[in-house]
């Protein structure tokens, strides 16, 4: 379930136009016309991208106003951030673990910490 959603989120993010649309929406709500402005694209082409983003839950369209403003939705981005964060931490924990082993090996060889060592 969660993996399916990640697949959908990453697929939606794997397009420069869609990422640019999300960047624009980080500044606040916008209409389809406003979103289309920076691109040399037809409104239907932009609408297609918006549908992909909407299906992935990355954006929501307002129901109330006639111009149906688009806005950013946090949840799928949270899942992506969460997913990446886990990998980052694993890497950092591995790094810290072996940095400690470096410290031990240095001490066991009677070496000074690298910062105190004069340049060879």
């Amino acid at each position, binding site marked *: 379930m969660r993996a399916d959603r990640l697949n959908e989120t990453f697929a939606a993010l794997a397009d420069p136009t869609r990422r640019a649309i999300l960047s624009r929406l980080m500044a*606040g709500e916008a209409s389809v016309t406003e979103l289309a402005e920076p691109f040399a694209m037809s409104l239907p082409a932009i609408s297609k991208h918006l549908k992909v983003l909407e299906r992935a839950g990355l954006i929501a369209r307002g129901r109330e106003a006639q111009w149906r403003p688009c806005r950013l939705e946090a949840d799928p981005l949270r899942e992506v951030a*969460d997913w990446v*964060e886990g990998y980052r931490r*694993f890497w950092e924990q591995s790094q810290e*673990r072996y940095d*400690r082993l*470096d410290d031990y090996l240095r001490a*066991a060889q009677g070496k000074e910490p690298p910062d105190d060592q004069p340049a060879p």
Partner: protein
Amino acid sequence: MADLQVVADPGTHEIQITRSFDAPRELVYRAFTDPDAVRQWWGQRDNETIVDRLEARAGGQWRFVQRSQDGNEHGFHGVYHEAIAPERIVYTFEWEGMPGHVLLETVTLEEQDGKTHMTDTSVFQSVADRDGMLQSGMESGAAESFDRLDEYLAKR
């Protein structure tokens, strides 16, 4: 020597870590197999490591406990399948907080010009277990990353 590499291909049962150390491999081997050495570097920096058991020989057992500053204890244990000084250690690894998820770890040490190149390969029982280990920082990290994303989104 911070040349750490972590390789975890999608959909496999494996994590492979490589790293070099500025020390002869006898010493690196001892760091993995001597209780007094393990106490000094194993685990997270702010935690105390208690070496309950370390019998580095085929069929020998090991058990290390991590005690955090707030007194929480996490036990890890396994069995050595090979301990060939100074080149290779093979053992099982299990976190007692999640029993039944065992991995097989092979640490290989190669020496060149007085430096040691380590290859540490862990094979998990399932892809899900492997992904779980990769995401092990997630529980503590999730809250923090959510907060940061919240702050970011609040500014829009």
